[in-house]
């Protein structure tokens, strides 16, 4: 029994903190509200730290680490609202193989995965996020090696060197690598409520790609990893929000007492902490399942997404409330965490579909056990 981080994982986390603190990414986030182009490019940082090949095998030039290691780094990025483009890149490395993977793992090429949701117990189709509305869109279709379809709200696609797309032929998903500059590919940057998060609408009109070996399991695994990474970013943001809320509640006085001494404030801060620690346990669960119990990875990663989303929704609002009116002003940092919470909640299928899949996984297991 050992359900805590290993020494190597603690060291990895510390190294991530060191690498990311070279830039004041929270200040950069505020600046980016006015001028999005001013956001620092942290891809070179990621490559230098070895994160580009984190999940790839050593034979493919990677570090051969696991999902939990990737989530620990994502959490550090989330803590500082740092725009490290791992949400697009790392799931791409789970799907890619051969030369494509080698180029992604070394960091020669930055990949952007086009998030594609596996079927559920209620919906037999592979789907992608729609531009708007609750009806999911069918994944792009495949004919030979040509892909047609639209994928919306894709993280980190703008400026990527390679797209890893999922397209469906005869009901079966196939993965392809597509050159974003090739004919029929349009990547349209979308206006992002969170200035630190680049999102885009990707249109593929008979775009030519190269088929990869990945099977449906690999493609579904990339989806679960994406859930785990965005949840981990949220958990990191929760930790920062709690730290800042605690600090202020100890130094701000009303009626002769620090506001943190009042139960109304104290209990709300403990609620952030409760949600944060529950989410952390779910991150460990997702990491453990990703490595040791792959049949539970979908359940675990989506449960983590549910827990981390709830935690950040609450923590980001509480961070504003604890600070009073000033917390809701343009100049304050609190709204940056709120923006992060609001957009994250709605990407990669949204938090609602994560809760739905948790239920679906459990209900399916219950039916097959009875």
């Amino acid at each position, binding site marked *: 029994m050992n359900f805590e981080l290993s020494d190597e994982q603690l060291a990895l986390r510390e190294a991530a903190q060191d690498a990311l603190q070279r830039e004041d990414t929270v200040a950069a986030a505020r600046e980016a509200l006015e001028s999005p182009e001013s956001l620092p490019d942290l891809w070179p940082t990621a490559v230098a730290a070895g994160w580009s090949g984190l999940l790839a095998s050593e034979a493919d030039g990677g570090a051969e680490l696991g999902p939990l290691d990737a989530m620990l780094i994502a959490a550090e990025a989330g803590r500082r609202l740092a725009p490290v483009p791992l949400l697009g890149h790392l799931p791409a490395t789970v799907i890619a193989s051969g030369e494509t993977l080698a180029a992604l793992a070394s960091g020669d090429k930055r990949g952007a995965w086009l998030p594609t949701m596996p079927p559920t117990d209620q919906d037999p189709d592979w789907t992608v996020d729609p531009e708007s509305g609750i009806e999911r869109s069918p994944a792009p279709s495949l004919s030979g090696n040509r892909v047609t379809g639209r994928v919306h709200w894709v993280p980190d696609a703008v400026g990527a060197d390679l797209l890893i797309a999922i397209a469906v032929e005869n009901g079966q998903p196939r993965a392809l690598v597509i050159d974003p500059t090739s004919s029929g590919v349009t990547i349209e940057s979308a206006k992002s409520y969170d200035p630190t998060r680049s999102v885009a609408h990707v249109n593929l009109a008979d775009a030519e790609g190269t088929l990869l070996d990945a099977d449906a399991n690999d493609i579904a695994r990339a989806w679960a990893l994406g859930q785990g990474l965005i949840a981990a970013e949220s958990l990191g943001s929760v930790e920062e929000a709690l730290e800042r809320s605690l600090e202020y509640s100890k130094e701000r006085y009303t009626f002769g007492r620090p506001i943190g001494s009042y139960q109304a404030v104290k209990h709300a801060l403990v609620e952030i902490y409760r949600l944060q620690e*529950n989410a952390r346990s*779910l991150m460990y669960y997702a990491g453990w399942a990703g490595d040791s119990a792959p049949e539970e990875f979908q359940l675990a990663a989506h449960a983590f997404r549910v827990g981390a989303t709830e935690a950040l929704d609450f923590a980001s609002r509480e961070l504003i409330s604890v600070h009073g009116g000033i917390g809701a002003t343009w100049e304050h940092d609190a709204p940056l965490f709120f923006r992060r919470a609001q957009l994250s909640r709605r990407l990669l299928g949204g938090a609602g579909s994560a*809760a739905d899949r948790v239920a679906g996984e459990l209900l399916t297991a219950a039916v097959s056990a009875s």
Partner: protein
Amino acid sequence: MDLNDTPEQAGYRAEVRAWLDANKAGAPGLDGPEAGDEERFIAERRAWQGKLAEANLAGVTWPAEFGGGGRGPLEQVIVTQELSHAGVPGILDVIGVGMLGPTIIAHGTEEHKQRYLAPMLHGDEVWCQLFSEPAAGSDLAGIQTKAVADADGGFRISGQKVWTTNAHFASYGLILTRTNPEVSKHQGLTMFIVPMDAEGVTIRPLRQITGEAEFNEVFFDDVKVGADAVVGPVDGGWGVGLTTLLFERLAIGVGSEGFGYRADRFANAIASDPAAAANSDVRQRLGHLAADLLALRYTGYRHLTAIARGGLPGTEAALGKVTAVKAAIEAGDLIADVLGPEALAEGEWSYLISFLPGLKSAGGTEEILRNMVGERVLGLPTEPRLDKGIPFSELRAREREGVTS
């Protein structure tokens, strides 16, 4: 991250499983007593505890010199898991063996240990914990039950205790009393061992929403105990009580799923209704509460890791109960919404739904748990206290004044 046993733990698990395989045919059932049949139920469970004790499967963490297993908390977890795997009940006297025995081992006299520990371990004498009172729960040091010294060195105890599990068939109780009201409230407390059949002890069952009486209220009317009944120093009972509460925290850490609130159990209740299983609202609610319950399970493994490394789960372990109660309330609501009024009428879900409002306050109200975590874990300032450094008798006078003014 590794949930597997070490080779030593695997070996121990195999031993435990072998014993249970050989002996489980003689075990009583898992269900609680039928109405009117409690005596037979308790007799069977006592006998089973005795068999477990002989096999070193009761008091796993007790030192061997007191008849225990002399092993660590992880081995206790292995025993608990294997009992559950075998489908047989564990010991009857969870409170005695889990909390009160260890308190006596830590603070009792040699005579206490010789006299009381073996019969406790074997289930021959069941124990109860007499701490909370009608006017002192969250603020436990505010208890009013008094123990007055007699000329012969003994004491006379008068007062009322409440929420006392197993009092109606317990042989002994560990009781926290006030021996000196003229000092501040944590300082004048003393712990005693009291026979539950002593003259002046009255036990009344306390029925709850479920209709069952899991607790009792216990009245003490000038109950005489000897000087040898004192556990720890006279006026030093608060420290003794803290030991008991420490073992309670350990029990929470190793038994996070002990309430039986598991995501798969609640999913099973819904899965047989295809319309419910396809309903988006049902699925959203199930998904959220299941995520909470999964978090609870894996938080439990984090506590176990702390224990395996020789530590204790921190104060924050108390939040596990908050999550468990919240998720189980949501599960009860959901299942009753799906199954309709019949679910409320009787049976498993009716019991769950009726049990939870009380569990919210059991073992510390949510408000007091949040205060503890806020102050001890997050370092938030305490609220101004009006009872610090004030003799208990004066404090009580002020409280009465507050009520009348």
